């Protein structure tokens, strides 16, 4: 047996994203990928166009085109000023017209790419090329059991999904391990959610992945063999995506040892993923499966977009989440995980940005402003958001109020637990009250008055003579209990640092 020196995994990815337009790709029937219609009963989101009734004609949904172009731009693609529609012909009961309207040789988006972060901080990246992203219509669903799971001796079809708009994104084979593919898939989900083109709920089938996988096997003596490409169909979770790639990375070496087959015309095969057993399985393919007889769709005129419209879409494009993450790490000295947490949702990230601007306006330097605001939102904010099942941006606190809390804390006018309490009070306060005014009203501001501090310290020593004794005897750590006592007695209004200094002085430190 030939010795394998090294294997290199080569993966390219196809992703189908269901666009959450109100209506379908080529008809005015409601789209099940839109949140308003996702629970519709079977075969209710239909009309003559969706069902392919005689005489029905497709109509282009321009909302889908705009969404697709926005995703394309965010992935660094060029947008075609002239594209057309093509028919992909094949028979299947879930395909009402006997053809799918797609884009064959002139995709809407092409020649893009992005720097994929390979770690949380985005310090290491890999360039992932995007070959194309095109629009097409989804098929219905063929079901082999009755709704509810009862056995039936025939198949039934639900056409709700038929005609729903799909964006198919195809990458270059630029991935070298499963982790990169999953990172890209997650990033893409983030971008699509960011742009509001999908909720990105994997369980609802909003995104489906199809990796193309093969290996370059380097043998002793320097010869390199390339294994046949395997396409894994219809993966609908990140776990399945990772599992299928990792499985193939190992299995293709074994397969090659067994049959010696290498990459070449006709060698490509299609496999499915068995989630339970954790293996890929061969799928039965018809000989003529790839004879789709593509030709230009005569029912739809070609689509022309002028440069001005494309430029306007580009200008209106928000900074994408991965770039924002990188900016947070670089400008605010945030950790990668913190930055990622802030960019998971666009509303939260926009809210964070607005808060930082307010804090900077209040006179805090930009880097500490970002860092302190992030801390407040990811601690006090995230805690309340979790409790309420809401986004941090939807807690009822304004950026000005957040800035108020941050700058009170920054000027040491408020303690850390009082800051957290103040944030909570702001969440529940009915009107929009100034943070400082509320803190004053609730007595949360630190008292800087020397005599009050001394009185609290004396009371703390009196209440805990043992700790005072210990400290005097040289046990430095005992001071902590006394500081705690001061904070308790002052109900948090004392400045802990000042209290420590006063205690040390009084106990003759």
């Amino acid at each position: 047996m030939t010795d394998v020196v090294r294997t290199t995994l080569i993966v390219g990815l196809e992703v189908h994203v269901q666009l959450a337009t109100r209506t379908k790709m080529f008809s005015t029937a409601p789209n099940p990928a839109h949140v308003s219609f996702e629970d519709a009963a079977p075969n209710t989101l239909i009309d003559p166009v969706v069902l392919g009734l005689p005489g029905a004609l497709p109509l282009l949904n321009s909302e889908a085109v705009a969404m697709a172009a926005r995703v394309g731009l965010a992935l660094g693609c060029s947008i075609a000023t002239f594209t057309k529609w093509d028919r992909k012909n094949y028979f299947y009961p879930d395909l009402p017209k006997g053809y799918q309207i797609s884009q064959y040789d002139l995709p809407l988006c092409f020649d893009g790419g992005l720097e994929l972060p390979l770690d949380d901080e985005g310090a290491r990246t890999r360039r992932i090329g995007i070959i194309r992203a095109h629009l097409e219509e989804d098929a219905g669903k063929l079901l082999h059991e009755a709704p509810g799971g009862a056995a039936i001796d025939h198949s039934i079809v639900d056409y709700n999904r038929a005609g729903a708009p799909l964006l198919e994104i195809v990458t270059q084979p630029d991935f070298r391990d499963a982790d990169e593919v999953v990172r890209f898939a997650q990033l893409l989900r983030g971008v699509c959610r960011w742009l509001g083109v999908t909720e990105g709920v994997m369980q609802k089938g909003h995104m489906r992945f199809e990796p193309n996988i093969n290996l370059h096997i380097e043998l002793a003596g320097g010869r390199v063999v390339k294994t046949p490409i395997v396409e894994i169909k219809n993966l609908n979770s990140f776990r399945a995506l990772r599992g299928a790639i990792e499985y193939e990375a190992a299995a293709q070496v074994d397969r090659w040892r067994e049959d010696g087959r290498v990459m070449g015309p006709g060698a490509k095969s299609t496999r499915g993923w068995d989630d339970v057993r954790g293996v890929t399985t061969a799928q039965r393919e018809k000989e003529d499966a790839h004879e789709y007889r593509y030709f230009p769709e005569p029912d739809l005129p070609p689509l022309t977009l002028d440069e001005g419209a494309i430029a306007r879409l580009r200008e209106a494009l928000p900074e994408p989440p991965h770039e924002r993450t990188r900016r947070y790490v670089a400008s605010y000295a945030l950790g990668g995980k913190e930055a990622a947490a802030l960019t998971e949702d666009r509303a939260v990230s926009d809210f964070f940005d607005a808060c930082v601007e307010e804090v900077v306006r209040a006179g805090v330097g930009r880097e500490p402003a970002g860092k302190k605001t992030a801390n407040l939102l990811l601690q006090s904010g995230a805690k309340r958001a979790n409790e309420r099942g809401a986004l941090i941006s939807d807690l009822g606190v304004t950026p000005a109020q957040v800035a108020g809390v941050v700058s009170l804390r920054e000027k040491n006018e408020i303690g850390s637990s009082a800051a957290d309490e103040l944030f909570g009070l702001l969440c529940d306060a009915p009107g929009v009250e100034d943070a400082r005014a509320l803190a004053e009203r609730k007595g949360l501001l630190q008292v800087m008055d020397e005599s009050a501090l001394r009185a609290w310290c004396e009371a703390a020593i009196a209440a805990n003579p043992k700790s005072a004794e210990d400290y005097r005897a040289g046990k430095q750590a005992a001071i902590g209990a006394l500081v705690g006592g001061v904070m308790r007695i002052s109900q948090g209004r004392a400045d802990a640092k000042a209290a420590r200094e006063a205690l040390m002085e009084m106990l003759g430190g």
Partner: protein
Amino acid sequence: MTLMGVRDAVAAGEVSAVEAAEASLSRIDAHDGAVRAFVEVHAERALARAREVDARIAAGERVGALAGVPVALKDNMCTSWGRTTCSSRFLEGYESPYDATATKRLLDAGAVIVGKTNMDEFAMGSSCENSAFFPTRNPWDTTRVPGGSSGGSAACVAARMVSASLGSDTGGSIRQPAALCGLVGVKPTYGRVSRYGLVAFASSLDQIGPMTRTVADSALLMNVLCGVDPHDATSANVETPDFLRDLERPVEGLRLGVPTQAWDERNHPESTRVLREAMEVYRGLGAEIVEIGLPRMEYGIAAYYIIAPAEASSNLARFDGVRYGRRAALGRDEDLAALYARSRAEGFGQEVQRRIMLGTHVLSSGYYEAYYLTALKARRLIKADFDAAFASGEGGPGVHAVLMPATQGPAFRLGEKTDDPLAMYFEDLYTVTANLAGIGALSMPAGFAKGAGSDGEDLPLGVQLMCAPFDESRMLRIARMFERETGHGERGPGM
């Protein structure tokens, strides 16, 4: 009575809509047994509609341009009542849940639709013999075909059962039967009339148009049918003129182009004669006749019989037995492929199957470039030929319309060409080019092949006019000049 005649009589209260409908239905009763123009007559519905129109007129309400006028629809236009079969076994019991835009426009104008007319199955054919149900006969000589595919729509107007009907024209399916039945038939510019609800044969070629006895009747129907439709992305967003307004005004300084290709050696001598006479008539009216070349016209039939079947093979894929229409009863061990194969084999006639196979073949990898792409190239060249003919100044002779035969000869006998598909395909020789170029065209009565019928009857012949895109208004005026001068369309088949 003509369409205009019925319309005016109803509007003036001389005839009620019910009387007009009854007259139409009794003509159908009397003659359709011999002609068989209709696959379905909706007598009760038509009378109910007519009563509604009469009530509205009695109440002094505004009624549409076709109020109370009986008309017939080719059975490939969807109606939300009755059946829409395309004269195919596949759609034998098919009921459409919606109205075609053309249907809706007729109804909105107050027309009374009396029934659906027979056709070559899915509009594939030139004789009406490809109907899965029965052939329609030519009212001028019932041993002969009415032409096709809109044969039923032609025969019912020629037999005076209705004064107007709608046909569809993919390669000549309005103009050829109009010529063979002595009628005016208009194929509008591609995009003029919405295709929504027209069961597609070849999407890039199909157009709905009127079939009538007079030019004015066609102009009136054009007024009702034309206009952009939000349901059809290929319908053109151009202004619809009033086709009747200037109809009587002759075109001054008229220039007509007659292509050298009009004198094909296979033409019936009577076809050649009526074309020569038409040229003389126009000369007599002060027109200048110029000879033009349409050199790429000779590729028309070949290109057409690649493009049309290619589109048809895809358009007819939806007839799979899964959702509606014919569904084969399967044995226990038969699979999905059998459902498709058997349903389609049972549901489609021979010619439809032949064209689906042709179309599938020319789109297959390895043949696509050689056949389909080459045909598209030929199509562009044919269009360029017409553009050049209509261009004025140094660009071309600047003709207002092209004049040529509609067909190579008069109606042929039933069965005469059924065993020779190619001979049947050449029935479209002079008509397919207008569809490939997407321009407007019409056929109009131009005289008779004297004594050419099986019992020595005279058989009608037509000549064809073609115009630049969206120039139908002027083309109809040119046709009207000829009609007023010759009166060729006035004579009926004497039923």
